[in-house]
């Protein structure tokens, strides 16, 4: 019975629970059985809430037994990346500086999940402050890829992706600043959606790069992405960068999710196929064939500024990070050094003792890029190039409905393979960061396996606020393939 439950999607589970066919408490028990059996190896979770989750599940079951109406995620066990504030359990960002931090408030997405009657079962591991592409930068825990335990799950939402892939939850929340939802989704063989910037409130998401960060779901399939987006999208007065209805109509992403897009035009960027693994490219070419058979028209476009995205991104993101992370001062919350002589040393030593190396490196790079004498040459220059990159997308979307490319140039790499050279790690984000710079939505969906049986991800990028069509386009491919139905042997 419990494996049968685990094989359900969010949507299927929610409907079964609402009908009274499955009990939420059984679903919660099933995932905890799984977590207790496998998470010592996988390491997806930083904290779990079994007692609270069973209580919450019991409440949902009771509502249903009484015939009361229930929310869109009624009784569904969901995991949350540990950079979203919760009043229950720690909110650590996988950093020693916040190891014992307990948020006094919930992030807006948490409130929305709870209002939809979801059951939050635990908080997942990440690269410290979401800075990384492998979850190896976690200051608290090591997470491995469920498909091959010698390999990384991707990052920074590596715990969320691993938890979904290993059936330790039915969906997970992640955040994406430069690919942190899509790349781990690709490495772990699940779907991962980065919505348009402004679509989902960032209130209570611990800030990394504020003009780039966006929360989104990691799920088993496209329908679940649509379901989750329905729950979390919308204006929030607590986030001045969340858009209201005058900018973007809220629509039901779930209805019509199976509808095929008529006269679909898909663009590919031939220059971007250089530099990716042969097997990754082959899978993308196979995906193109699938779309052709569905009647899509494939066009080739140039994106002359795409190759500058990494350089622009690592200046902008680190500049924003250096400013955002100034709040960790050893005074208001978080770690405080025991070795401070004066108040300046409270700052300098608290931060030095508790930040990990990658966080320090990015703070240093960002501080340098913003510092007097270098601001114009680095930060301002990067913002101008950002405008050029957005221009490439604007021009492209005049000709096409979407752009497809790999999510990552490689499949999951070995643990430790890229840690010695930070620049090599940054270069692995080549396909994902442009969407963050342009603020547009993008999704990664499973589209194949390499010779080591590691998942390959197809990335689809759409215009701002075009999530509905984006999900339909992704679903067209999913409906013709069964890559998303494969599960790793744990």
């Amino acid at each position, binding site marked *: 019975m419990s494996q049968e439950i685990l094989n359900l999607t969010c949507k299927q589970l929610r409907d079964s629970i609402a009908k009274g066919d499955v009990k939420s408490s059984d679903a919660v028990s099933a995932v905890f059985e799984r977590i207790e059996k496998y998470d010592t190896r996988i390491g997806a979770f930083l904290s779990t809430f079994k007692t609270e989750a069973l209580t919450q599940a019991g409440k949902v079951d009771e509502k249903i037994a009484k015939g009361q109406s229930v929310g869109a995620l009624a009784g569904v066990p969901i995991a949350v990346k540990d950079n979203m504030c919760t009043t229950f359990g720690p909110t650590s960002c996988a950093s020693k500086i916040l190891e014992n931090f307990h948020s006094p408030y919930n992030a807006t997405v948490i409130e929305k999940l709870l209002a939809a009657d979801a059951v939050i079962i635990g908080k997942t591991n990440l690269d410290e402050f979401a800075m990384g592409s492998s979850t190896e930068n976690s200051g608290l825990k090591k997470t491995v890829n469920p498909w091959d335990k010698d390999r990384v799950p991707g990052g920074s939402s590596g715990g969320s992706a691993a938890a979904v892939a290993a059936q330790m939850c039915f969906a997970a929340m992640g955040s994406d600043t430069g690919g942190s939802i899509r790349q781990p989704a690709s490495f772990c063989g699940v779907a991962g959606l980065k919505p348009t910037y*402004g679509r989902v409130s960032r209130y209570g998401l611990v800030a990394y790069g504020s003009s780039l960060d966006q929360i989104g779901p990691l799920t088993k399939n496209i329908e679940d992405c649509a379901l989750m987006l329905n729950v979390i999208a919308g204006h929030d007065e607590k986030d001045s960068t969340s858009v209201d209805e005058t900018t973007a109509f809220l629509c039901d992403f779930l209805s019509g999710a199976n509808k095929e897009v008529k006269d679909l035009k898909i663009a590919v960027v031939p220059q971007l196929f250089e530099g990716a693994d042969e097997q990754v490219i082959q899978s993308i070419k196979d995906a193109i064939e699938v779309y052709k058979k569905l009647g899509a028209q494939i066009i080739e476009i140039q994106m002359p500024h795409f190759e*500058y995205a990494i350089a622009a991104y690592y200046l902008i993101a680190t500049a924003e990070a250096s400013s955002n992370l100034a709040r960790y001062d050893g005074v208001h919350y978080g770690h405080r050094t025991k070795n401070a002589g004066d108040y300046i040393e409270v700052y300098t030593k608290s931060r030095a003792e508790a930040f990990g190396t990658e966080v*320090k490196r990015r703070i240093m790079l960002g501080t340098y890029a913003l510092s007097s004498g270098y601001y114009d040459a680095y930060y301002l220059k990067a913002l101008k*190039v950002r405008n050029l990159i957005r221009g490439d997308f604007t021009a492209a979307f005049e000709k096409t409905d979407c752009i497809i490319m790999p999510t990552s140039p490689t499949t999951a790499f070995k643990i430790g393979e890229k840690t010695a050279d930070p620049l090599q790690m940054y270069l692995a984000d080549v396909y994902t960061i442009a969407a963050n710079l342009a603020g547009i939505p993008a999704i990664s969906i499973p589209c194949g396996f390499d010779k080591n049986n590691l998942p390959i991800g197809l990335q689809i990028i759409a215009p701002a606020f075009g999530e509905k069509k984006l999900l339909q386009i992704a679903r067209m491919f999913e409906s013709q393939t069964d890559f998303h139905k494969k599960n790793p042997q744990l």
Partner: protein
Amino acid sequence: MAQNKIDIEQVKQVAKLARLDLTEAEISQFTTQLGAILEYVEKLNQLDTSKVEPLAHCLPINNCLRADEVKESLGTDKTVTNAPQTDGRFFLVPRILEESGGF
């Protein structure tokens, strides 16, 4: 090899600005690594951006103003509860000003 884009003294200065008490080993490591990253981002200079506006933000929104109304806030207890040192009402820090007796 070309000259490193950043030297040890500059790294020390940036660490000071960033309020990070780095070890000698970290300073030396960051000098090399930041040098390599800055070398890489030089490629932005291949682009002529003299007529391009900087884009700090992708949304078509400006200021978001709300009514100037008093609303419920977090309160002192919750605000100081995560502080490493507090007397229950205030954050405690080492003395910032020397005693002068002038007040």
